[in-house]
């Protein structure tokens, strides 16, 4: 299972992390988001928002980016700034 991290409003709703079985070749952020959102209404409401972004290995990426199981994947609400 690959750990998925959540921050900001997403972390508040879903807790600091979740997990998902990813194929060895990886999946797109769009697919990972869809699979996580399918689990329940809370996850869908927290993740299916245009201002919820994703990162792979600490780099903010778009929906077409591919993440492999050995990479660090996170979803988060828009940064507030400091």
């Amino acid at each position: 299972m690959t750990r998925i991290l959540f921050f900001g409003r997403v972390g508040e709703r879903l807790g600091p992390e979740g997990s998902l079985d990813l194929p060895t070749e990886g999946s797109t952020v769009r697919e990972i988001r869809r699979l996580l959102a399918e689990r329940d209404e809370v996850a869908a409401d927290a993740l299916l928002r245009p201002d919820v972004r994703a990162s792979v290995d600490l780099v903010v990426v778009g929906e077409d980016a591919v993440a492999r199981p050995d990479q660090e994947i996170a979803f988060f609400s828009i940064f507030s700034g400091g």
Partner: protein
Amino acid sequence: MALDVRLASGPLSAPAELEAFLASRTGDGAVVTFTGLARAAAKDGTAVETLTLDWYPGMTERSMRDIAEAAAARFAVSDLVVVHRCGDIVPGETIVFVAAAAAHRRAAFAAADYLMDRLKTEAAFWKRETGPSGTRWIEPVDEDRAALARWKDETP
């Protein structure tokens, strides 16, 4: 050029940071600092008991460093310090300290101003205010975005 960029989970002392930054500095004619404090009231006037800055270990530090590197590339500064708190902060405590050293004051003022405008909008934090009526998330306001936009039209 030295860039000292740090995330602090405990108290941040602006005087101690400034003292360390000034020590043995003989080549610069100017040091400008900014100290940001947690306020006891939200924008709408309601009381704030705790300000919480959530962060993403690794990403938050990288976002701060990217901003510091951009400032260093843009202004004729010799050294920069950026220290930002994370976690729970109470009113009156220091949230952020920046310092810029330069041969001449204008570059140091500009670099500190630029650092703060970008940190306030682009640093990877998620900020919440907790008061008697509960907790609410804070996002950059138009005023912060307008401050940031000032730097877009100017040549580096």
